[in-house]
């Protein structure tokens, strides 16, 4: 199933990528999105995740065409 993945801020710099598309029937949760997209890299501590523009935890179930984002703690304002 196609899933859009996005990265922001330092995570984007560190990974060297801003976005990618995954197609895998193995993916059920946000955590698995990370594992499939970054198989050799542990999810950095404190990383936040969002699905379709809302915060979720790592066990959140993803479905076809979801947009999944990973990013560091926010520092705006």
């Amino acid at each position: 199933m196609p899933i859009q993945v996005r990265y922001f801020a330092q995570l984007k710099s560190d990974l060297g990528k801003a976005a990618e598309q995954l197609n895998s029937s193995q993916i059920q949760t946000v955590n698995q999105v990370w594992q499939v997209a970054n198989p050799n890299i542990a999810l950095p501590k404190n990383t936040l995740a969002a699905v379709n523009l809302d915060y979720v935890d790592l066990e959140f179930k993803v479905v076809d065409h979801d947009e999944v984002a990973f990013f560091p703690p926010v520092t705006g304002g």
Partner: protein
Amino acid sequence: MHISILENELQPWQTVATYQQNHAELTGKFGATNVFVGTMRDFNIGERVESITLEHYPGMTEKKLQQIILAAQQKWVLLDVLLVHRVGKILSKHTIVLIAVWAIHRGDAFDASRYIMEKLKYSAPFWKQEHLFNGSSRWLQTNSSGYQAKKASDKDS
């Protein structure tokens, strides 16, 4: 409610004055206006800062800010809320964020401004990368602990 993500320089006081002029329906109704303005300082964590780049997550930013303001409107009696946040390259001394709240009573205006600002700091998807005068850059790792925490540990605006 009006939310704006701005790529250009923000003149906070002129923005509030203009907004108020353009919303004549508020005139005579509000008794209390509270405006918070966050501004970039010259110094942060012991270093002279030349500018920052403010990255955000378009789409989620607007959605999150709207959720925050809707929650504030549930908690307090508000007549209007204006929120403007800069993104992109921001020079030292320039405005980063503006929150203006119009209410009948002052308690609502004070409480709501504060609430919106705290929620924004901890949940709106903005990230600051500081560019120092020595030529190096660094991503800020965490936001300040906010006003609820001990004042002495409050290291950020």
